[in-house]
């Protein structure tokens, strides 16, 4: 269990800044996801925490102790790689035994022929075997212990990699997109398994992913990274419902949030698609962008309208793609009741509640809103 603190971590490769000063504190025992599009620097950040990559400046502290310049092997962190990085020539048992043998046996005891003859070796091997048996029991991989990684399926390899990480009880676990090589169904299953593992071990998990669904479903906190910067850190609900930046709003949530062009008036009133909202803000007048999540769009009534251009029926829910005339805009609405789907090409009215709206200014920062009591008289909304 460990608390990991990062202060002003900077990293550049060949003059390109990959990390632009990351300040961040990972609390003891939390499951934190670093999420962002590819190339945002999340994997680099993880590798800096692990010690596999040196930072150009800044400091990493684990439990208050600076670890810069300390070798990865001495940091007592475990890492699960995207490719699992199992040793292909070793059986599952030996793969999991590697970290234990490296720590408990001396260099002489590890020698191939001489090692097993040394006096203390047998007792130590016995301890190692007991530890591996316990891990195999927990992860349900006991029948696989004698197989080589080449004879395991993707999910099994994943579990062996987790076992190898768990077996030496590290201070924290680092995961580098561990589920991205699995098929969709298995990924959903492993998501639950990893979250459960975290609840059981109560150790710090740092989880890097580009899949916002993984981040949303497993983590206690999410850190969204874009372009080498940490944009927002918060619980999954905060990140989803209260994004501080339009990039966060667009990255989190599937299907993507609908962004509509809007305008802030001098008196603080907000228009979207030419209709006034019952909202006001303190921002300066000018262009703005209005975000509405697909599930917050009410179809059938409201001041706006569009044509149904595409329908996605997933069985439990459906997504209706609407093209808004004149605006050259498409938006997606979620329909909970799939029994009453609109016809393709039909003309639909829609609207949304005023608390469903997230307004962002021209550079993408969130504008705080206050809900107004009365309808504005300045310009009536045409239905």
């Amino acid at each position, binding site marked *: 269990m460990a608390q990991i603190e990062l202060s002003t971590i900077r990293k550049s490769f060949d003059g390109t800044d990959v990390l632009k000063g990351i300040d961040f504190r990972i609390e003891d025992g939390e499951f934190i996801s670093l999420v962002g599009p590819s190339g945002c620097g999340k994997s680099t950040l993880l590798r800096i925490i692990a010690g*596999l990559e040196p930072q150009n400046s800044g400091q990493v502290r684990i439990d208050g102790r600076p670890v810069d310049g300390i070798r990865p092997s001495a940091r007592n962190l475990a890492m699960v790689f995207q490719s699992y990085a199992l040793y292909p020539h070793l059986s599952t048992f030996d793969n999991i035994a590697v970290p234990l043998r*490296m720590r408990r046996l001396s260099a002489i005891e590890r020698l191939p022929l001489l090692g097993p003859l040394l006096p203390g070796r047998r007792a130590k091997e016995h301890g190692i075997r007991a530890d591996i048996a316990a891990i195999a029991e927990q992860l349900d991989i006991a029948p696989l212990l004698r197989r080589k990684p*080449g004879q395991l399926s993707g999910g099994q390899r994943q579990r062996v990699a987790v076992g190898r990480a768990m077996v030496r009880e590290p201070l924290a676990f680092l995961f580098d997109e561990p589920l991205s090589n699995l098929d969709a169904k298995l990924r959903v299953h492993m998501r639950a398994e990893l979250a459960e593992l975290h609840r059981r071990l109560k150790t710090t998990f740092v989880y890097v992913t580009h899949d916002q669904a993984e981040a949303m479903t497993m983590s206690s906190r999410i850190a969204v990274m874009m372009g080498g910067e940490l944009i927002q850190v918060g619980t999954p609900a905060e990140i989803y419902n209260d994004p501080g930046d339009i990039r966060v709003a667009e990255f989190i949530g599937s299907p993507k949030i609908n962004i509509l062009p809007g305008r802030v008036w001098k008196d603080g009133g907000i228009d979207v698609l030419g209709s006034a909202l019952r909202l006001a803000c303190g921002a300066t007048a000018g262009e703005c962008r209005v975000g509405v999540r697909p599930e917050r769009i009410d179809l059938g009534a409201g001041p706006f309208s569009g044509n149904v251009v595409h329908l996605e029926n997933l069985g439990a829910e459906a997504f209706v793609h609407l093209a808004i005339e004149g605006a050259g805009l498409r938006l997606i609405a979620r329909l909970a009741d799939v029994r009453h789907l609109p016809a393709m090409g039909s003309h639909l009215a829609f609207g949304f509640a005023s608390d469903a709206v997230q307004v962002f200014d021209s550079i993408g920062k969130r504008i705080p809103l206050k809900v107004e009591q009365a309808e504005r008289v300045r310009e009536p909304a045409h239905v």
Partner: protein
Amino acid sequence: MSDGAMTIDAAAVPARAARRTLPAHGSRRTYSAYALVAPAAALMLVMLLGPLAGVIALSFTDYQLGAPHFSWIGLANYQDLFADKVFWIALRNTLTYVVVVVPGAVIAGLAIALLIQSGTSLRSLYRTIYFLPVMATLIAMAVVWEFMLHPQFGLVNGLLRGAGLPAFAWLQDRSTALYALCAIGIWQAVGFNMVLFLAGLVSIPKQLYEAAEIDGASSGWARFRLVTWPMLGPVTTFVVVVSGIRSFQVFDTVHVLTKGGPSKSTEVLIHTMYTEGFEFFRSGYAAAITVVFLVFVLALTLIKSRLADRGVHYT
């Protein structure tokens, strides 16, 4: 991805397919299959198996190069061979050569490959330099070595004298001549082995080293033992066997530098074969030596394929 499963599948599918096509034996499909295989089979027969059978047949005759007649003499050539002291000397020298050159060339090749791989700059320059001996004609290089090892004005003895050590007549002394040839053999083979090892090193996934580092393999030696050496297994097997076969074939340096001397101390199998076959024109006898040589090469090849089966190859 599993190796075992793959071999089972690969073995099972053709077997089943063969059983299905069995009733159709003699049909046009079978003929066209034979027709398609024929060119390759004919070539193999003419170029490889035919000459081999010829050599084996020749070894049972008293044929002499250019002679109009020959007669079958059964195993007489082999009896002569095994009774001949020169043959046993040649065999012992060849084996000594193999035992010295193979480990030397493999270890040196691996060491140089590791050094080049760990370096940051000038990689391709070093690679080219170490590969030069492989590209150069060994006969020409042997002449250069002759100068270098010359007792009076050779570079090697010059260096020894400079360091205050006694000079040697490397190629003229019975106790050092074979080892001098071994050194040249290693020098020549190192570049080739290095290139193979470099290719092997490049294909090792970088994440395995990172995993090893995180698992606690902090020293370079521990990472070599845990990742590099086992992952190079297939390459190493190949390099050892190829070096072994090439060492068995040692001829050019012997022919140019020592002609088997002094007093047979550098006599090797192929050189004996050459003298018997092309200087004394005893083709039948030379063929018998060739057969013995082939037995050794075949044994090496079998060892290699056996090792390959035993799972030196991974996924």
